């Protein structure tokens, strides 16, 4: 293809486009079949997994709030359990808030809006999703330990006196894991051209987000 030496102008493309147009028109009768049926069922196909995920996240958040409140209210005089309860409460609120924001943005997408404004809206949605995964997803390295502590804190009478060693070890591993996940995620945001960013496909969602942002910003700038 690149070896062709045909010199073309944009207006020459119009003639070629008319050829393509004529070919597509001849296929219209067949293609019209494609547009029949399953319209409503398909309309929210792409949105459904996201909305389902966000509903689960909100429910999880509600569970964390209930557990957190139960834990800190029962242990106002035990600093460790009080802190764990407050942390669970705070993370629960964050889970619910992010689920609400993402759901609200996704549901308010109006595809009949001008292309650039809807693409900006999608860019915002993608950015918030990345933030959501970093704020509500990565800390689960630690959160599961807090959940165990939270359940233990609901019946403080049965607790051992000193904090068990496994909890300290798990917290240390969890904090290291969270930091490593954030670093990995930040490495992915360096962009598709960064050799490190191409090392795995785990950060593909982030790279895809960056392509959206890069493309949009370039189009607005030029």
């Amino acid at each position, binding site marked *: *293809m690149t070896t*062709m030496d*045909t*010199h*073309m*102008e*944009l207006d*020459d*493309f*119009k*003639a*070629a*486009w008319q*050829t*393509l*147009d004529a*070919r*597509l*028109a*001849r*296929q*219209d009768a067949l*293609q*019209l079949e*494609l*547009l029949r049926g*399953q*319209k*409503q069922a*398909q*309309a*929210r*196909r*792409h949105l459904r997994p996201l909305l389902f995920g966000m509903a689960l996240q909100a429910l999880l958040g509600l569970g964390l709030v209930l557990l957190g409140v139960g834990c800190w209210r029962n242990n106002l005089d035990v600093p460790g359990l009080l802190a764990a309860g407050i942390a669970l409460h705070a993370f629960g609120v964050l889970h619910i808030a992010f689920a609400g924001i993402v759901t609200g943005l996704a549901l308010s997408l*109006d*595809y*009949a*809006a*001008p*292309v*650039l*404004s*809807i*693409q900006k809206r*999608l860019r915002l949605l993608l950015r918030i999703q990345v933030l959501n995964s970093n704020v509500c997803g990565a800390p689960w390295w630690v959160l599961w330990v807090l959940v165990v502590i939270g359940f233990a804190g609901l019946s403080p009478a049965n607790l051992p006196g000193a904090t068990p060693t496994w909890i300290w070890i798990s917290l240390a591993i969890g904090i290291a894991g969270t930091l490593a996940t954030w670093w990995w995620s930040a490495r992915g945001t360096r962009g598709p051209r960064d050799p490190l960013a191409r090392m795995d496909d785990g950060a*593909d969602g982030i*790279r*895809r987000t960056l*392509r*959206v942002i890069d*493309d*949009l910003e*370039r*189009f607005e700038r*030029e």
Partner: protein
Amino acid sequence: MQTTATMTGDDRQQAFAALLLRHAGIVFKVANTYARLAEDRADLAQEIAAQLWRAWPKYDPARSASTWMYRVALNVAISHVREQSVRQRHDAVPLDDDLHDMADSSATDHENENHLRLLQAFIARQPPLDRALLLLYLEERPQREIAEILGITESNVSTKIGRLKQRIRDEL
């Protein structure tokens, strides 16, 4: 604002079917511009039709149907391209196979055929938003309508078309 939401269920469905039939070309041209494989094109055309149906209750019949359809179709197509991140990397490959599929056996105009191949390859290399601009330009939509569809100013449309022409001269 008078919208199709005020129609009864049957009327609304019939009006939508008639509009879709009248402007089906927009759906297929957008699908053809943004999807490389026949299977993807079919999926994308269906997805566009589905989103048009979803947006239909808010459609104001006093406004241009083609502008409304282009907006929905392009927004869906651009999102579709971005979801297909792996395939997108291969989009830079010329669309030879598809052209063979679509070729008219009676076509003898080799120059036109070459132009068509170059056009397809050039479209495939463009980022999604530039593809939208190129499609609307090739469809000879007025600059005012292009501006309205894309959400940019008319002077910006003019500047971008100028740059697009330059890019074609540089690349082809």
